[in-house]
């Protein structure tokens, strides 16, 4: 070993320099429960049952989501719309009960793809919260239907739309797409 290596001090100095450099660097971690990351426009989080622009429920209880569901997590009971309920439901049939078993759900998004009425979507901005009680597992319509005062907004509502927007953004023709509530 040379004398410089024998006294170790230069090596300690370089080591400390590396350590101290990291104090001033941008942190790669975030403080999770308080701060949340943006998960991207196609993330599949918790379910939402959409309403249309007049606040009527879109779901018509056709059962295609339930038959497409590989985990058999969805249960639907249909009912006929009565006179005077036209402002509540879009079609003459509606889902009286729409339940998703969140323990069964694998968030594959097949229900979203099967839906012919653009009624069921998986939110890209919200998770299913952690369960602590049994009765929190099955989500009924009270939790799933969209709140008209706080609507779920999204930039693109279909894959095709998202692809188109990506192309436009890549070309630099338009800067920002405004998120909107109606698919």
């Amino acid at each position, binding site marked *: 070993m040379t004398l410089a290596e024998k006294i170790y001090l230069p090596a300690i100095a370089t080591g400390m320099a590396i350590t101290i450099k990291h104090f001033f660097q941008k942190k790669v971690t975030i403080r999770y429960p308080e701060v949340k990351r943006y998960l991207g426009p196609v993330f599949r989080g918790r379910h939402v049952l959409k309403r249309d622009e007049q606040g009527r429920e879109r779901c018509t209880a056709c*059962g295609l989501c339930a038959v497409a569901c590989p985990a*058999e997590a969805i249960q639907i009971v249909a009912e006929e719309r009565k006179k005077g309920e036209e402002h509540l439901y879009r079609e003459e049939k509606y889902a009286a009960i729409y339940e998703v078993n969140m323990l069964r759900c694998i968030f594959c998004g097949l229900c979203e793809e099967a839906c012919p009425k653009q009624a069921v979507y998986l939110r890209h901005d919200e998770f299913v919260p952690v369960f602590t009680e049994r009765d929190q597992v099955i989500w009924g319509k009270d939790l799933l239907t969209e709140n008209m005062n706080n609507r779920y907004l999204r930039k693109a509502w279909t894959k095709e739309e998202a692809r188109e927007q990506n192309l436009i953004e890549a070309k630099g023709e338009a800067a920002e797409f405004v998120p909107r509530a109606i698919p």
Partner: protein
Amino acid sequence: METKPDLLKITFDGIEVEVEAGTTIMQAARRIAEADASQGHLVPPAMCYYKPLEGSGGKCRACLVKVAQGSAKDTRPMPKLVPSCITMVQDGMVVENVTNPAVLEERKAIVEFLLLNHPLDCPICDQAGECHLQDFAYEHGSSNQRYEEERRTFEKHDIGPYIQLHMTRCILCYRCVYTADQITEKRVHGVLGRGDAAEISTYIEKSIDNDFSGNVIDVCPVGALTDKTYRFKNRVWFSKPVDAHRDCDKCSSHVTLWYRGEEVIRVTARKNEWGEVEEWICNTCRFEKKKTSDWIIEGPTKVLRSSVVSANKYRADTVKKPDFALRLANSQYKPIDDSRPFITDEETVRQLSIENNRKANERSAFENTEN
């Protein structure tokens, strides 16, 4: 001397078949499929033709085929596509169905034509999943439509207490009219108006109060005539069909019960492989007997694997068990005879158990003498 019936030989899509004189091309094609199940795709689709109903057919044009050679004597092809359900065969006829691209192209046009005025409300319609028009459009249609005008619409209409008519969905196949003709002597159910305004109707709001009027529901290829007691109860593919019969003084009562869990939500007549009902059932069986205790269960209805009714239902032989478990079971346990018939008749069950007891007694007596 015994006279042999004259058999005519025709070639259907390259397959030769011998049929009696007076058979239609459609029936000849069905005969091919009945002899060899793998040829089922050759049979032309039928929207209006219904074999048990006399006079049906020739209206929807879904079954058009090309006759490449009229007969052995006159080998010229027929100038236009012919409806196979009402065209009789002739000796030496050569018919092209799926082998002729022009026929398939024509069929696409027919689908588009039938869907001109048909609403796309399959998510609401109770017939979805067992709708012939849905199948027909899925198999033969193209996915887009060029029609831009307003569709014709009608009000919903009640025919008697049990049947609802959605005229908007009707494709005017006339099957229900022929059924009504067959079950009643007085004609109360027919088609009023012509062209776009044509409409299935019971004359002056007269409902069919015949005991067999419910059969128009089964006969309807679309969801125009539906069961009011089943309205919006459940989708077809979530219910489980089971064959059953009961002691009925009016009909053969050979029915299919549609279960949701333990509850009978619908009763229909049995359909054969062409979706046709051969035995009519009465309204008492169809609308009033909705308890399992009313029926003698014969066993589950056979449903094609490709049908939506079998979605999310798993047959034992399609679920593969791991090799090791099978080998272990083979070495450890006696094989189980699963071919035993499904018996519900109490008297037979009693006789069988007496027989089994007798055999067991004999066996133990034999073992005792050996010792």
